[in-house]
């Protein structure tokens, strides 16, 4: 009865019995199915011809699967490829800036001593508690004043740095031994050189994690892009996909094929880099 839940090496070998393992695996598999089912249903609906989408009972396995919805998506939602390109442009640009700005600041907050450092850091950190909706209207007027509406820069510029990124980089760089920097200085590196040749290469794992997170976050960003990217060709995938709902209101097959294609790049991206993702989640929460 007293089975072992914690995997312990050595003498106390797990007294695992089938009575423990079956419910354990069952529980895990059921929760996995529940958790992944909406994603599955998204793709099933996307593959089901629209005339069958409201059939009762529904086809749980897409027996009539066809790519017809996707064909129609590309012939009817004529800006879909624009949205995809915009999404890529926005997320890649933001990721590049994000990594650069956040790493620099993270380094400064971790290792540099300058007047007002702690005050500034806590000020920055406290903005985490500000709901993004507080700033929606003023931010819109700021962007409008720059003449940036319907310009991808309206989304890119506010996204060039983030509190989360600075926090993550600071936490990571703090764990690097200061002796390395000192050694670099003795070898004649400038301050920039120390950062570029010593800190940045050593921070690669954190930079990787930050890049991945930034990419996913801005790929899926909806509220702000939907306010500033108004004309159809300048929208991003989530915004465009949402607009498909009003444009093709009853064509569920087409709407879901649009949504599934918007979700697909991130799913592939995640499956390729999932190790770094999970590492990154952990790193972001390191005790500070």
């Amino acid at each position, binding site marked *: 009865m007293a089975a072992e839940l914690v995997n312990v090496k050595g003498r106390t070998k797990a007294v695992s019995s089938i009575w423990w393992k079956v419910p354990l695996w069952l529980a895990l598999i059921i929760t996995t199915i529940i958790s992944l089912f909406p994603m599955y249903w998204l793709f099933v609906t996307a593959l089901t011809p629209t005339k069958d989408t409201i059939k009762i009972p529904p086809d749980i396995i897409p027996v009539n699967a066809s790519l017809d919805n996707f064909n129609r998506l590309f012939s009817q939602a004529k800006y879909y490829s624009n949205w995809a390109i915009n999404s*890529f442009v926005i997320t890649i640009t933001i990721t590049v800036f994000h990594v650069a700005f956040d790493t620099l600041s993270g380094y400064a907050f971790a290792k540099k001593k300058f007047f007002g450092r702690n005050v500034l850091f806590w000020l920055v950190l406290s903005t985490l508690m500000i709901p993004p909706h507080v700033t929606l209207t003023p931010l819109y007027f700021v962007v409008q004043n720059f003449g940036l509406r319907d310009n991808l820069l309206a989304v890119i510029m506010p996204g060039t740095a983030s509190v989360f990124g600075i926090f993550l980089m600071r936490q990571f760089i703090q764990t690097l031994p200061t002796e390395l920097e000192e050694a670099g200085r003795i070898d004649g590196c400038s301050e920039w050189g120390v950062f570029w040749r010593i800190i940045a290469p050593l921070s690669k794992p954190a930079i990787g994690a930050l890049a991945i997170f930034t990419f996913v976050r801005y790929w899926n960003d909806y509220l702000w892009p939907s306010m500033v990217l108004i004309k159809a060709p300048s929208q991003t995938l989530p915004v465009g996909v949402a607009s498909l709902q*009003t444009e093709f209101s009853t064509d569920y097959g087409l709407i879901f094929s649009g949504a599934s294609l918007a979700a697909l790049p991130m799913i592939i991206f995640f499956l390729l880099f999932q190790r770094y993702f999970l590492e990154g989640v952990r790193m972001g929460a390191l005790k500070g």
Partner: protein
Amino acid sequence: MTKRLFPQYQRFGLFMAMALFMTLMLAACGDNTATPVPATTAAATKAATTAAATTTSAATTSAAATTAVATTAGATTAATAGGASVSKSGFKGTLSYWALGYAPGANTGFSKSTDAAVAAFTKANPDIKVEVVGYTADQAGFAKIVNAVQAGSGVDAFRIPNDSLPVLVKQGAVAPIDEYITDADRSDILPGLLDTVKFDGKYYAWPLWVPPVAMYLNVDIFKEKGVDLPKEGWTYDQFVEIAKKLTFTRANGEKVYGYSALVDPGLVDTWPFILSDGARPLSADNTKYTFNTPEGISGLKKVTDLALVHKVTPPDFGTQKLDDILTAMQKKLQAMWSRPSGDSATLKANGLNFQIIHMPIGKSGKAVSAGGIGLIAVAANKDKARLSASMDLVKYLTSAGVEKDVPGYYLAPAARKAVTVQEPFSFFAPIAPTAWITPSLPAWTQIRTLIHPNLQNAIFGKMTAEDALGQPTVEVNKLLAAQ
């Protein structure tokens, strides 16, 4: 699919590099004026649409963000008969017209005819380009138009329902039309309509059309059950009888419902029932809340009974979205639908066999309808030439000439006597003058958001009709008193 998409992705790397570069370059000059790309209007052939898609896609990569800027090239449907007058504004450049419900290149009647109408205008005025920006009729859509109008740039003309206009006028964001409206216009526009856009003695928008609510009948379901189509002058009780007969389960398990309609703060699709016993939400001078009268309560009961007593409505009645109901109509799962005229175009395009009839009669003894007024307004602008050009555009878009140039442009009874609208919209024309029209009050948007959740709760059976209409009384009267 592959033919259209993949050429773009083959050059994807190049696109990305260019885009990144251009994005940085455009840091300072991000306005909409950057490289407008001429594209043909969707009114033209399929080939033209495809071409437009490909050209503009390259443009947006560079963050220039231009929608289909209409040129005369593809305006095949715009006849030369010439309703579009030449603008004397002397303005050269691009005007931005925000059209409610417009989707670029979409196969809907409104999008096509708007493209064609705008093309006709730009043909008469070669110096002026017009870009059409679509926005949706939901809260997200209004958020966009409100932001743009408030920020004061990027929008010149915009189509808006009359009950959403006053808040914008109050904020000083809308230009008065007094200098541009002629006596001929005044006498042409249906009596009373201009009063709804009058604030502090000035007129603030051009009335376009009046889409009142009528009942759509899904004829095939009537035939299936052998029920005769109702005749004009039918009563609420007859309506209920029919709805009951047409609520049934087919042999294959499909459930068919007699009636449904949208319930949303921005819509009045179910309101003809509430008004049918003679109630009105506000007193004639808009100073007092009058929905809490016995007529109002019995009117609301007519709606709630459909769900709670007669059970002729689908289970999601009250929270359905347009796509739910359109699907049900097209799949022949719903027999009757109260809705303004615009959607008859969609149903017609989808080949549905339907008929339209006046709303059933309540205790007031005559058919009552409800609706708003579709308006096109011009955003306040210090640039006189631009303002004047925008006025010319809007005047054309709300004129009789536009229906001549683009037959079928009007999707609802027009606001002008000179316009003759086509089938099936012409059916709504006699209803329009007698329909109850949503009030043009700055407080109305707040009043309707107060009433709406109560209507829903009454439909769900969580609130009695008395409470639903009685509870907002104090608050609504306060709002009315405050203006």
